[in-house]
């Protein structure tokens, strides 16, 4: 990787933070995502990889390339996590590295 990936950011405001450890794996994002069942992975799984510190797996996932940035996941997330923002980070790294 060219630059270190900064995903885990502590919560700053009430809206749209990207603290991945706030994710409780409820699956709302996956259910409402328009592309999640096309690829093998889903937004929930990608966040799980990140929680397990498996950043490589998350960046390599074919799902991140499919993400259309429709923001539905961010809008649905009961924990207020900016899921689409995380995907945006990952897709950039995906195309830089693979």
């Amino acid at each position: 990787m060219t630059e270190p990936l900064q995903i885990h950011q502590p919560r700053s405001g009430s809206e749209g933070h990207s603290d991945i450890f706030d994710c409780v794996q409820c699956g709302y994002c996956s259910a409402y995502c328009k592309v999640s069942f096309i690829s093998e992975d889903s937004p929930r799984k990608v966040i799980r990889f990140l929680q397990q510190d498996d950043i490589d797996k998350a960046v390599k996932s074919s799902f991140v390339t499919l993400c259309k940035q429709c923001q539905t996941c961010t809008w649905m997330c009961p924990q207020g996590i900016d899921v689409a923002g995380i995907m945006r980070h990952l897709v950039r790294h995906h195309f830089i590295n693979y």
Partner: protein
Amino acid sequence: MGTNPPQIGLYIIDPGETLAEIVDLQAVIQKCAKIRQVEVCEVISDIWAEQSLQTVQETVTENRIDRLVWVGTFTAQQKKTIQNVLLEVGVNPYLHEWCDLQLQTIALGKGTEKTLLGKTLTVIEMALARAKQLQPLVPIKLPASDSVVVVGAGIAGLHAAASFIERGKRVHLVEKQSGVGGKVALLSRFYPLLCNPQCGIEYVLKTLRNSDKLTLHTLSKPLAVEGNAGNFSVTIQSQPRYVDTDRCNGCGLCSNVCPVELPIFLDNIQDEPPFQEAKGIGGLIKETRRAIHASVPFSFPESFVVERASCPEGCCKCEDACPTKAIDLSEQLPAEQNITAGAVLATTGWDPYPLSRLNNYHGYGQHANVIGNLEMEQLLSQISKGSDIPLFPSEGDGNRVGFIQCSGSRNTKHLSYCSSVCCSATIKQIKQLKTLRPDAKCTVFYQDMRCNGFEEELYRELRSTSDVLFVRGFPKVEASNPPEGTKLTLVCEDTFSGRPITTELDLLVLAGGMQPSKAGVEFAELSGLPLNDHNFFEGHYQCYPEESQRTGILTGGCARGPMNASQSIESAGRAAMKALKFLEGTISIEPTYPVVNQLKCDQCKRCVEECPFDCYRLNDKGFPEPDLSKCRQCGNCMGICPVSAISINHLTLKQLAVQIEILENSFLDYEEPIILAFLCENDALVAARSAMDKGLNVPMNVIHIGVPCAGAVNNALIADALSIGIDGVLIGGCKDGQCHYINGNQLVNKRSGDLADKLKTMRVEPERVQSLSLEIHEAERYVTILEDYIQSLKAMGPSPFKL
């Protein structure tokens, strides 16, 4: 007593002569016997021997001793026994002074012989000085009313009312609906026994029905709560029923002739109804009600009620049909009345979270077969009553039911807390559904199944005996042919396998959450009670769970937070128990209340502003006066008063000041700092005491004085202490949010700015005063803090005023 100088008896209690091994008690006795007004000075090795206390009694009578100083270590129980024995010879319980050598680090026996003797003498002299200032005190009695107002006649309010009536108290039960029962009356079953709640309400009503102590105010709401514990004046407003409750016999002839048909239940269940009335439960339960109908939700009082707003103009069919002439449709205005009560109980309950706010998620209000869990209860109860409503609105005979948990709860965009009952409610509903329709196929979408306590058994039973599919994950809901679709398609990621699941359903139940009732929020506003972040009533959840910030107003049931029916009943019972003490006809008040010295007071009103319980009022001369029935005796007024005009009895500023004066002569070497620690008796003092009990190395430098709250320490006392050469003053309170008097610990920090200015003019470093927050278990931390503090005081050097 009177003008005679007080005569003091000094007793050193030394069981097993452990104290004599540490301190030369003979030297102490010799020195103390020379102090003025000390008549008797003795060492008793075993105070609990048969003759000991009797001898003390005799000595007290012979020498006309009127106050006693006890040196040693005593439990609260032992103090009480000694006080009672000496009360027999006329010594007021407030004329004892307890000098605890354990608390003052002496009993640890660490330090040289000289310092131990010096410190022992110092603390005994402090106790003697305070003893000279003690006053005999007796509790005061205030007149009080013996009736109580209960706001909300849900299951909690009914049970509370029943407990009061069983104790012979008069109860005014105020209910906004036309009948009692609240939300529980809308349920089909309630757990854990899964019986019919109508039966449960009937059972508690048995006590209420036959009592002449109950006054039920239906269609009413409180408008104002004035006054204090023992003597509240509650104004309530009652809407007219248009039916005389005494005359009406509930025959129902009026209902039969009424031409108006209104959709049933919809408005009772949701404060915010779904978008279209024909959808949701309105579309499911085709039954209607008339404009004149029996009390809802539970038919008590057994009188009908007219919804006048729905009546057609000029219609008096019911008035004509009534055989008992109970109906009067002439224009009537809402009635207001004042009720005097000793206590007020708020059991204002909960409202269902408006599921229409979730319409984008799950289609509530858009599809006829998406309903809330309270509507499901209604449906189940109608079906089990034998009504021929189809369970599923679809044309074909469907049998697939889905449940989505946490609909609105545990979501930062809706209710951030867990509503705690919905998981068990879903399990309960599935169980009943299975008995009514054994072929029903249920799927539950959940995040965590939270079945607390014994409810877990219901959950296990359901998992093992029936074909219910539990899916961990939340689905996306789509109707198959919107907008009038009769089948729902749900797509969901099973978060265990990571695979998508597609399900077709005929009925979808959203397990909606609980939010505080609108009526509760209104009551909080009019009575000036604080609400927590979620708009439930604020309270000290562990120590005084049912008490509110206003003494005499108690809260119970779901007004305090989400709870199930049985927890709610328990909570109401506890609240009723707490309220009983205000309903005795008189209220007894401990004599340790604050007294304002009007000669010193400059009417600045700081006390009025800062009192955490808002108990100060100005009298007709403009001086503040505490309302003793409201006062919780925390002493924050004593701490805040800029002119030291307020003292609480038995811990007056004078009593503290004379103790501090004794510390003018240090019992340690010149270089060793002396620290005076004022510690809150709830937390910090207990932590310090447990440090001593554990035998931790608590430095000899510290002298402990217990105060009811850290906020009771006046800046003048601190300045006094520093000006006579004490090197440091420590103020120990609770952690933020844990103070038993709301914010006493924060008030200390608030006025530290004033203190710093004052100290600078005295040329004393402000750092000599430290405040700390200590939890009750933090004995080790207390010792570390003390050691660091001593180091920093040593670095500063001795106090400039030290002799």
